[in-house]
């Protein structure tokens, strides 16, 4: 059975801190790993990773994939209160298999 595990489940940090969110996966016909930010309703697309070792960056967010060890990390530097959300990772074969998410809370 396809499985995606995220850690930690919950994280509370102060504004300005750097955080690392973890995602491990086991899917049969892996194509890519996607990260989403879910604030109120819709998961908002952040990154799609297909190749190992190539870091993707968007502002203060970055992500990298390790296809040998079957995990990905999402880094957020200089966190802001607007970064508070649930961060979801999903492994893509013919469908997206989601993890439970990491609930990130940024304290001003």
């Amino acid at each position, binding site marked *: 059975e396809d499985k995606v595990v995220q850690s930690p489940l919950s994280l509370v940090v102060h504004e300005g801190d750097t955080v690392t969110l973890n995602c491990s996966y086991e899917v049969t016909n892996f*194509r*890519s790993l*996607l990260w*989403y930010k879910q604030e109120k*309703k*819709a*998961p*908002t*697309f952040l990154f*799609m990773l*297909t190749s190992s070792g190539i870091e993707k960056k968007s502002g203060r967010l970055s992500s990298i994939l390790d296809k040998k060890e079957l995990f990905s990390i999402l880094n957020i530097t200089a966190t802001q209160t607007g970064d508070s959300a649930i961060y*979801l990772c*999903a492994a*893509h074969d*013919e*469908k*997206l*298999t*989601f*993890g*439970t*998410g990491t609930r990130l809370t940024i304290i001003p």
Partner: protein
Amino acid sequence: EPEVTQTPSHQVTQMGQEVILRCVPISNHLYFYWYRQILGQKVEFLVSFYNNEISEKSEIFDDQFSVERPDGSNFTLKIRSTKLEDSAMYFCASSEDGNTIYFGEGSWLTVV
């Protein structure tokens, strides 16, 4: 920025009734999906749709569910004879190439 739009945002229905959830995918996208998220649980795959037919469906997507693309823009999910356990947020999603997948705001279905 183009986005996936869904209606209604919230629907309350009585057990046993039929509901239709509507979605307008991003205009040049070819792959369409429905996912759902029961309160407090993971986002779960229901069905994918490409070239006017279902390409993949999960165990959840049984005979109670159907999808349709009735015209060039809408993509609908029909749930027949709703049950209490169908209460969830239903997300429509679309993709241009089947790789990067964009989600709508969701339709919150409450079955009473």
